[in-house]
């Protein structure tokens, strides 16, 4: 990294190794920054040239895999999708995602998050999937039918919405916005035959009704998904205000 417009920003990296000790601290790393330098670039620079023991999880570097979610300057974001120059200031604070158990440094445990996700059967449920001929084997959908769930299918399961949710912070049995958004994604899909059974999956004491509609899940989503909208739509189906066509 070199150039005329290069400057330095201090990365304050959260450090913890829960297997060894409960002590946590921030490590200061000065990294060179250009206009296009992302927080992930900065962390990788620090890992290469300052301290190789910094724990980070990352993969695609293009906001597709959802691996590098972390709290950056107090807000859950993807490190690969956040430019340091856009954050302002001379210091960037990197912490692990809230609402997830810490494994080490910026790496968190997603087991519970995925357990919630699996519980709502995030796939098409359809008993009538008999492929008799080429004409009937297609589950054809109109553009309107696709529009009903399309934005929810952009979810990359990065966990940012889950970490921003105030209900998850107090109620670990609450499925969280990602799971509920995906439940809506399949419930609204005209190919899915889950129907009422899908709604019943989250209709309990710690289910969908514990959402306070803070809306922070939709605010932090890097893919423009609006889980808060999905949750309110699911509630309207449960209350009988809306009817899911064809189900």
């Amino acid at each position, binding site marked *: 990294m070199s150039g005329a417009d290069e400057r330095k920003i201090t990365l304050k990296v959260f450090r913890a190794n829960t297997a060894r000790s409960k002590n946590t601290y921030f490590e200061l790393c000065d990294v060179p920054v250009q206009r296009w330098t992302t927080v992930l670039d900065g962390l990788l620079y620090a890992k290469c040239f300052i301290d190789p023991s910094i724990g980070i999880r990352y993969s695609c570097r293009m906001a597709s895999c959802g691996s590098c979610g972390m709290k950056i300057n107090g807000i859950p974001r993807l490190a690969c999708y956040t430019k340091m120059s856009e954050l302002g200031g001379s210091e960037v604070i990197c912490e692990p995602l809230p609402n997830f158990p810490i494994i080490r440094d910026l790496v968190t445990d997603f087991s519970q998050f995925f357990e919630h996700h699996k519980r709502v059967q995030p796939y098409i449920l359809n008993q009538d999937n008999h492929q008799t001929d080429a004409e009937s084997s297609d589950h054809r959908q109109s553009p309107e039918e696709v529009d009903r769930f399309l934005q929810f299918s952009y979810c990359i399961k990065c966990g940012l919405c889950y970490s921003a949710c105030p209900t998850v912070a*107090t109620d670990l049995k609450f499925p969280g916005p990602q799971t509920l958004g995906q439940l809506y994604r399949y419930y609204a899909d005209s190919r899915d035959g889950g129907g009422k059974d899908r709604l019943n999956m989250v*209709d*309990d004491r710690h289910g969908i009704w514990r959402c306070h509609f803070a809306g922070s899940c939709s605010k932090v989503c890097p893919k423009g998904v609006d889980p808060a909208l999905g949750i309110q739509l699911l509630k309207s189906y449960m209350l009988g205000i809306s009817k899911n066509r064809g189900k």
Partner: protein
Amino acid sequence: MSRNLILRESQIMKVHYITGVAALFVVAVHILMRLVVPYGSSLEYDHVIFNYHNIFYAVLLEVILVLVSIHGFNGLRVILLELRQSTRWENSVTAATIIAMIGLVIYGTRTIIIANGLGT
């Protein structure tokens, strides 16, 4: 995931929303009735007893009592459920709020009946 034995959570919340909206209307009527006479004198003892003897007003108070008790105690149940996540806690909170709600409605109804003079 724990299930409710009698009502699904969506049915409970439907009752919660309906009682909340209905309470807004009846409390508004109650406040407007207070404003028919000067607010200070409307709270004088004789005036209050006179209101209780009006059967329409007594029914209105009973409706407010029932709606606000159901809405309020379910709201309290929802808050308390988030504090801990164990079936024992959830069942205890649910039972306690139902008992408290019924107790308050019985006590309030008794007060309305006595003040109305129906019991004499």
